[in-house]
């Protein structure tokens, strides 16, 4: 068991380091910080400040993160119902950015500079080095075969190729055909907008005539459940919550049971934000997924919520989460900012997980179905 060896080594070595008075001269810090530092540290030790934290804190962070981007305005929620199209919504953000693609489209011939610019544009959209290289290689071949000769044609071919890669996925949100309630589970790292997304979906589903129950599986902090409760109230959905710090699996199981008893169609299950490299929390999530399926309900969707500002780490997130809970789709939030969310191309390409919904604003009607063509257009806007 190598882990034992590692532990033994670290303990001993570290103990030795400290014990030998391997103590850095204090004045290293002295210039940076007031001298009171040291005394305070000692004081702190006497009354250990560490006790506070973990649970409440994490919760709080999650709470902060989730809640922050939901200015839960009634106004916005009530506003009906015409679904905005990508472009209308994106207009604002994109107008602010100079169209890098404009200059490419204007080129009358394809030279090294054109390729460089194209590469830059793709990387700046968070498409990633790997996917970018692949796309450009593909394009280079096309230039020869199809005899593309100017920037406009090149750009057209690129968009077509990207849209092609994004097509052929089933983006429907599935409902169970069994008698029990359908369960949709929402997962993701901290601060991406899981609770908000559930709120918006709830509003939409209720509008479409389904009965909905929201289960506050984020038991980590007080505000998460309250926030979801507010959305439930607004959407006209039922709401189930557990004790703070309770077992999220249990809360969601209860939610499903309650939904079953009241013959509710759809359970939207929230979970606490967690970093995908935290093994224990990911195991907890696997359990939530298993338990959600145990009762009368059927889990038909496990949706990873990703923030459009996320860079290359998004792919790692998707990988880890799908290993833990078998994702059925992605919700890409905050696409109304200046970030373009290009990482979802790699997620489609490498993991075959489709983006199903896109968040383009704060209102419930701003959560729209993904459209490959418009997404690609927006990427280059």
């Amino acid at each position, binding site marked *: 068991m190598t882990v034992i060896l590692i*532990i033994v080594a670290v303990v001993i*070595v570290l103990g030795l380091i400290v014990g030998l008075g391997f103590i850095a001269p204090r004045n290293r810090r002295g210039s940076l910080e007031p001298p009171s530092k040291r005394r305070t*540290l000692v004081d702190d030790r006497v009354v250990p400040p560490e006790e506070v934290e973990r649970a409440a804190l994490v919760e*709080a*962070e999650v709470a902060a993160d989730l809640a922050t981007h939901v200015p839960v305005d009634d106004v916005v929620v009530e506003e009906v119902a015409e679904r905005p199209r990508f472009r209308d919504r994106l207009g604002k953000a994109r107008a602010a950015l100079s169209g890098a693609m404009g200059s490419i489209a204007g080129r009358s011939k394809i030279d090294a500079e054109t390729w460089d610019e194209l590469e830059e544009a793709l990387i700046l959209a968070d498409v990633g080095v790997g996917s970018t290289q692949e796309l450009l290689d593909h394009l280079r071949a096309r230039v020869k075969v199809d005899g593309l000769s100017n920037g406009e044609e090149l750009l057209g071919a690129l968009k077509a190729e990207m849209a092609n890669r994004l097509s052929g996925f089933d983006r429907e949100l599935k409902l169970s055909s069994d008698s029990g309630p359908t369960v949709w589970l929402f997962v993701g790292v901290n601060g991406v907008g899981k609770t908000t997304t559930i709120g918006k979906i709830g509003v939409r589903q209720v509008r479409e005539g389904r009965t909905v129950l929201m289960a506050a599986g984020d038991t980590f902090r007080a*505000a998460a459940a309250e926030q979801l409760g507010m959305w439930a109230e607004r959407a006209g959905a039922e709401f189930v919550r557990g004790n703070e710090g309770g077992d999220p699996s249990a809360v969601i199981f209860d939610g499903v049971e309650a939904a079953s008893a009241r013959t509710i169609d759809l359970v939207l299950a929230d979970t606490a934000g967690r970093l995908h490299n935290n093994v224990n929390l990911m195991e907890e999530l696997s359990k939530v997924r298993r338990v959600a399926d145990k009762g009368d309900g059927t889990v038909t969707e496990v949706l990873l919520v990703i923030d459009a*500002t996320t860079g290359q*780490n998004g792919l790692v997130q998707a990988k880890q989460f799908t290993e833990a809970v078998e994702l059925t789709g992605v919700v890409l939030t905050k696409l109304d900012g200046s970030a373009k969310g290009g990482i979802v191309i790699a997620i489609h390409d490498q993991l075959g997980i489709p983006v199903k919904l896109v968040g383009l604003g704060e209102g419930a009607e701003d959560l729209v179905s993904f459209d490959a063509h418009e997404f690609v257009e927006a990427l280059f806007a």
Partner: protein
Amino acid sequence: MFESLSDRFESVLGKLKGKGKLSEADVDEALREIRLALLEADVNFTVVKNFCARIRDRAVGEEVSKALNPGQQMVKIVNDELTATLGGETIRITYNSKPPTVVLMAGLQGSGKTTNSAKLARWFKSQGRHPLLVGADLQRPAAVEQLRTLGRQIEVPVFSEDTDPVQVAKSALTEARKTGRDVVIVDTAGRLAIDADLMDEVRRISEAVDPDYTFLVIDAMTGQDAVNTAEAFHATLELDGVILTKLDGDARGGAALSVKEVVGRPIAFTSTGEKLRDFDLFHPDRLAGRILGMGDMLTLIEKAEEVYEKDQAEAAATRLLEGEFTLEDFLDQMQQLKKMGPLSGVLGMMPGIPKEVKNAQIDDREIARVEAIIRSMTPAERVDPDLIDQSRRVRIATGSGTEPARVGELIKQFKEMSKMMKRMGGAGTKRLTKSRRKVAKGKAKGPGGRSTGAGRVAPKGKAPLRLPDFEADLGGSKPGGGLRLPGLPGGPESDPFGLG
């Protein structure tokens, strides 16, 4: 985080290190790899371009140093540039001569403003200040409540009122003066940089309180857009620095490099975990060392100093070198180690840990298991593990819920380790006091390839991948020099962990 970036750098630069002469082609090849590594780490495209151009200029240019061979020189150049790009020096927080000192927190939704306001308050408190938290995020009902909860945990008062954010900020200053709080931290609502109305609001807040420090809170997982966000906020607010959050994830943190470069403002603080104390000043030079795979001993030592009971640790170390280290001591040490957070974090800061070990998923419950095994031993067994025969092994395994084999393994490895330590202790305590003094001195100017001082990388051809100061000060007792700590192999080529 940063680990994968450092892996890449290590392999690129490793190829160069041995070379006596660098051709332009070598440099270009290395730069290609570096560029790729940086882009994959989400460093902004333009920043990467400039970074590589600068390195190329210097590498191909005249810089000749007699002490270093060209390969090492390349490592030094990359280290210098990395340090410069990351922001050179640690930010120095000064306090307004007319209190309160005002800090304004701004950022996108979900970046972690509220939590980090509290973390910052805790930090100020640890500096002997008296912070006041201000909840100016009135956009969502829970925000202020959350801040209050956090405030209770760190025993810092929270001010808010149900007016508008600008008014709240203004009243907070009055409140602070009235109650004698000397630092005011204003938490604002999250906003998109392109939302003109909200950006205007935050500017008005800023005008109302005239902050001494304006920090932008950025998520370490942010991609290329980090730069746009930082630029937009900087244009509105004139930032003083950035607080980088969620560094405990595995994002490679390119945002850290980009923001400083583009906005010209340093990363001031980083938040590296879920607990309120997982937050500290950012040390660019140390991070550069870490990215280059040279460990971050300074931070490690600082962290250790905070949690270790010094006397106890000293006594234990003495016993260790005398060969009197028992499992009881080991248990004590392990308790201290646990306070330093997840093992993987500690490993990440140690230099010279092979990446197979660093990347291995270490379940921290393993520590608990080891602990359980030792706690299942009688005091006599802890002092003299040789007592433990098969029957006792089975008993201990049952008591700790493990396998007899694991008990045996632990004892075996513990023994081997202490044997090595004893040998290392050599002549015993007489030397210890002396060497201890020397160690302390050596820290300032030890010749052993200080891993963190800017530009002092691996001099004299020594691989930087060891515990340098040990080497310099203790190792002298043994012919052949370097004290290779068992379990901390001298370089990536050795693999005592059998993971390779």
